């Protein structure tokens, strides 16, 4: 079995009118199927990418995989464990949380502006009681900063003193702090410039090798996905329409929606088209 498996994963949102209005107008319940019966399997140490347009359910899947949102039906299994299994003990759940971390799209919104970088990075270490001793905590923070290409001195600065790319590095360091096995990257470079995006993507690749991390990579940008993913799942309105390796998906796409996405994506190699 794969390291991370979702089976028949679904999430519905209830958009119906209030009960009385429904009765008077004789309307049925209205459900939005944000994610509908999605089955994916992610192998350890590999990158699985989910692509699709806004509203296709990419981030909803990420939330469910991270255990932040309860699935309407279906399960997410990590090494055979389910976050939402009621009989899962507190300690076990804690260790699962520790092994799943997230990197968000906007490095501007995901760092507390009033906390120093050192405190931001210490937070997961303290929350999971990984290191009790203060000096060792600081040593760990220095180590993390160096791993993502920042200087240990940056620990005393506030997030606003950094550029977008550097902030995303801080977010990555924070995700690494609890020594996770899988990191969910939700559009990690959409807010960044091209040259900075290249730096962050390369950093993510290096870290994957160094710590044998598994990534669930979410993006709308097929070009970015092609540089990162071992396997790609294409989502359309909550349904997984195609799943393939990059070489197959880009050379011989099967589903019409994948073909449409590929032809619509602006690609720098197309300069000769004019």
């Amino acid at each position: 079995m794969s390291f991370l498996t979702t089976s028949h994963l679904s999430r519905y949102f209830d958009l119906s009118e209030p009960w009385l209005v429904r009765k008077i107008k004789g309307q049925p319940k209205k459900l939005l199927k944000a994610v509908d019966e999605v089955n994916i399997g992610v192998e350890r140490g590999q990158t699985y990418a989910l692509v699709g347009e806004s509203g296709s359910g990419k981030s909803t899947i990420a939330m469910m995989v991270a255990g932040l949102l309860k699935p309407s039906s279906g399960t997410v299994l990590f090494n055979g464990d389910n976050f939402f299994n009621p009989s899962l003990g507190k300690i076990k759940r804690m260790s699962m949380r520790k092994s799943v971390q997230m990197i968000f799209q906007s490095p501007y919104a995901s760092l507390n502006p009033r906390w120093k970088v050192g405190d931001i990075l210490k937070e997961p270490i303290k929350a999971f009681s990984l290191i009790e001793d203060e000096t060792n905590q600081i040593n760990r923070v220095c180590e993390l900063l160096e791993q993502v290409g920042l200087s240990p001195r940056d620990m005393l600065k506030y997030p606003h003193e950094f550029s977008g790319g550097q902030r995303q590095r801080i977010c990555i360091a924070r995700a690494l702090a609890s020594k996770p096995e899988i990191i969910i990257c939700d559009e990690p470079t959409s807010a960044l410039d091209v040259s900075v995006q290249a730096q962050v993507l390369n950093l993510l690749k290096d870290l994957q090798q160094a710590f044998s991390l598994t990534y669930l990579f979410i993006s709308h940008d097929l070009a970015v996905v092609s540089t990162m993913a071992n396997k790609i799942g294409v989502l359309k309105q909550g349904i997984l329409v195609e799943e393939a390796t990059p070489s197959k998906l880009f050379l011989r796409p099967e589903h019409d929606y994948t073909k449409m996405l590929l032809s619509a994506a602006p690609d720098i190699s197309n300069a000769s088209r004019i």
Partner: protein
Amino acid sequence: MTSKPVKPLLEIQNLDVTLKNRDSYFKALDDLSFNVLPGEILGLVGESGAGKSMTGSAILGLIEPPLFISKGKIIFKGKRIEENAISVRGSMISMIFQDPLVSLNPLRKIGDQLVETIRTHINIDKAEAITYAKNLLEEVGIDRERFNAYPHTFSGGMRQRVVIALALAPNPSLIIADEPTSALDVSVQALILALLKRLCKERGTSIILITHDMGVIAETTDRVAVLYSGRLSEIGKTSEVLNSPKHPYTQGLIAATPRIDADSLKTKLYQIPGTMPDLSEIPDGCPFHQRCSKSIPKCSENNPPLLYDRASCWLLEKESV
């Protein structure tokens, strides 16, 4: 055919925009010169802070203190406009912004907003303006019946269509499109860019397309200007610049752009070391030399001018000798 060169629609000559902070002055745009020809789509590309939007604002006279135009000329149809851009703003040069939700008034019907724009710039009565507005809506692919709808009832792509209709309403000769599709999905982006391109080719309207996306540049523009730290680093035909870039920054930018390619997983992206310097920290000489892998001693001493009307790089000078 005539050998006479086409007279440019817009000429920017040696434009400097300066930021005054207490007693220090920083150049946000430094000696920028380029032309826009009638009917062409010129792309302005660069990273955040390179001065792309600043150039757009300068053309429209939207530069406000603490920024000011300290040098240079902006000539539109033979007239200097850097002092009184209001005479052309809206009527002859219009603008499309990134976020279509912010550029439409949420409290007014789109029809009213169109009619208002039309009647501000064209002298026609209300009934004519309404017909004109409805025709415009149809042209950008929106049902005439939606004339009385409010902006929130439209999706992002539809709103951007309305914004394009608004920009086209006064029949401008130049549209400055500032990241018009960055907030949209790829499939919608392709439609909007195709629409913008088609309408402007039909009317002979020029476009300055400001974007950070090299893919959009490749597929949409005729010529492209690459900006770095408020300076023009390279300009030329899009296919030439993208296929054989002369400036090391352009080369790096293109190499760093991920491509849709089945094999790219195995290789790493090229990465330009460092980041673009802050306005207050732009080095002497070429602003890129500290990050440049090919820099020569001259690069840190003198700022290269635009050589061969193509790139601002001392290496080009060597190449010809």
